[in-house]
């Protein structure tokens, strides 16, 4: 992951994400910020990417594998982990019933996108005023997908560390490994 980030959007010389273990255990870990888990990673456009990926070891019919139980990615304008100045975020939860003990089903798509933006269409008013309260369902978005979005989308204008012919094949290879085995959640409550 560090390789993909350092070839693309990560600020020069930044060491990349950190891996956090619970004391004395190696059955789960979080891939997150450096120094502290909530610390956003600095990007080459002066903005920041907050990353949190919960990993766990699972016994599968193909042996032990590392899987993702939850992930959260937030592109934001400043380095504050508690900022209101976020631009978009992708969240994913594999199994909300594992922790969400309400009689009602989990109210959001298990993989979704939020955008911190105003709706600029005529006089349409959303009940809560802006688009950031809408959870747009998505497919699983791995960190490779976030890197690709930020690196490829010209509107963000992030000057990547290396030319695309260096990092596109790396991203494609990583995606090719991820997509066939990715858990895809339902698009809404069932």
């Amino acid at each position, binding site marked *: 992951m560090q390789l993909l980030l350092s070839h693309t959007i990560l600020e020069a010389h930044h060491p990349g994400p950190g891996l*956090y273990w619970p004391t004395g255990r190696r059955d789960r870990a*979080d891939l997150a910020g450096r120094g502290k888990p909530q610390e956003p990673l600095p990007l080459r456009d002066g903005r920041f990417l907050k990353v949190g990926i919960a990993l766990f070891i699972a016994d599968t019919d193909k042996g032990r594998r590392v899987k993702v139980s939850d992930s959260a990615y937030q592109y934001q304008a400043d380095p504050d982990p508690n900022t209101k100045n976020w631009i978009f975020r992708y969240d994913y939860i594999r199994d909300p019933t594992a922790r969400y003990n309400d009689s009602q089903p989990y109210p959001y798509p298990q993989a979704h996108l939020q955008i911190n933006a105003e709706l600029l269409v005529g006089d349409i008013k959303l009940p809560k005023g802006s688009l950031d309260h809408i959870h747009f369902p998505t497919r699983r978005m791995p960190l490779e997908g976030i890197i690709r979005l930020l690196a490829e989308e010209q509107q963000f204008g992030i000057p990547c560390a290396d030319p695309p012919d260096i990092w596109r094949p790396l991203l494609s290879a990583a995606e090719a490994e991820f997509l066939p085995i990715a858990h895809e959640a339902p698009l809404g409550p069932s």
Partner: protein
Amino acid sequence: MVQVNESEVELSREEILGLIDEGARHRLGIRGEELLELYHRGQLRDLGEVADLLVLATLLEDQAAA
């Protein structure tokens, strides 16, 4: 925090709860324990605002909960 190597760190249960508490107080004005209770009861709205804290909270779970 115990630095395992250059990029890996071990966090105690108290340290994990402390980090969650810090974020919950800043963002929602509630304690970390309250945040987790609300979440587990299905009463927490706008999970995205604290999604990274909920990811961190997975480190508190035992393996069987996966």
